[in-house]
């Protein structure tokens, strides 16, 4: 539960935004950060935006998370072959 997931802000109403995470839309509290705009990427943790991040970082993190929850680990040793 400590991991944070990147999301793209698509709608803002007061303190609550709607944000898209890999296609699904969730509500995100904006109380913890300053000045967000539609189109911004944020790190979301337990339903709140923690920080703004850039788009590339957001996409990379999402990909990594998808990877991490995958069942079969791809072993780095085989991958690095030292």
């Amino acid at each position, binding site marked *: *539960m*400590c991991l944070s997931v990147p999301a793209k802000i698509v709608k803002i109403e007061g303190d609550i935004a709607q944000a898209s995470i890999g296609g699904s839309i969730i509500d995100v*509290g904006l109380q*913890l950060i300053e000045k967000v705009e539609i189109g911004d990427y944020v790190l979301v*943790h337990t*339903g709140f935006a*923690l920080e703004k991040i850039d788009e*590339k970082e957001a996409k990379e993190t999402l990909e990594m998370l998808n990877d*991490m929850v995958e069942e079969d*680990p791809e072993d780095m040793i085989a991958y690095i072959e030292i």
Partner: protein
Amino acid sequence: MKHLDEYRDKKIAQSLVKEIQNRSKQKIRIMEVCGGHTMAIRKYGIHNLLPGTVELLSGPGCPVCVTNRSFIDKAIEYSRQADTIITTYGDLMRVPGTETSLLKEKARGADVRIVYSTLESIKLAEENPEKTVIFLGIGFETTTPSTAVAVLEAKKKELKNFLVLSAHKLMPPAMSALIEEGTQIDGYIGPGHVSTIAGSKIYLPLVEKYNIAVAISGFEPVDILQSVLMLVEQIENRKPSVEIQYARAVTYEGNVKAQEMVDSCFEPCIDSWRGIGAIPGSGLKLKKEFSAFDAEVRIPLDIKEKPEPKACLCGSILKGMNKPTDCKLFRKTCTPENPVGACMVSSEGTCAAYYKFQE
């Protein structure tokens, strides 16, 4: 700024591993205190890439794992009271209390609901004025701000039926406690998102007091290898400091707005960590001005601490003194489907990470 291919890049990983091999002379022990790091290290087998001089240990980085048994017992006791709704993050449902878990209580009819955000608890309280909604606040620096927002919101809305049972915890006091207790650690891989909120500054006293190296790391294999290299350099050069490897999401100051919200409603207190014991100043409780929202003040319970099951080594695993494979129950009696100790419950728990990634 680097991009994904670079964080995964075989050549970069390879050269980092080589550099670590070249630089690392003395035997050192490095601990990660973030469940996300534990998962990534196990998944990518990073521990197996390092030279024999560098030993990686998993510490108390999973909020579910360090949540005390008596906290679960209290939550269960509240769930048995009339007109009460318990709200919690899903991870906590299967954590065994002394006799039962929230999941089992729910199956027996208790009103326990998983929420994704604290604001859902607020909404539940508004929609059910005749019921008391008790939110189970667990988590470290990353998660506490979410609870603070809910408490401030409840105050603004003058809600009388929203309460928090807080087991929120602070990471640095636990990092000190491990060293004080004698776990031999030369460097910490600093937790990523804890530091996004709290800033790298929170680890400075550790460096000053214990001469320990700290590198705050991201979650990609290359991030972790680079952090290990930073730690090796700091230790070899005898210049321990706090370095930020995860500069894409961490600053020295952290998220000041979030820190202020937490400070406005919480204050440090002594708290018990599962398997580790009481650590002064490591917990957060609601300040007096907010006691109307404090479950333990509004509905006091008398729950005594009970010892952990004898065979479960969670305590010494959280302290870096044992590995899950040292536990007789590991994989046999204790599995993610049927966890004996809390370290097997959350996917970020050390035992669960070892289990999943075939150790």
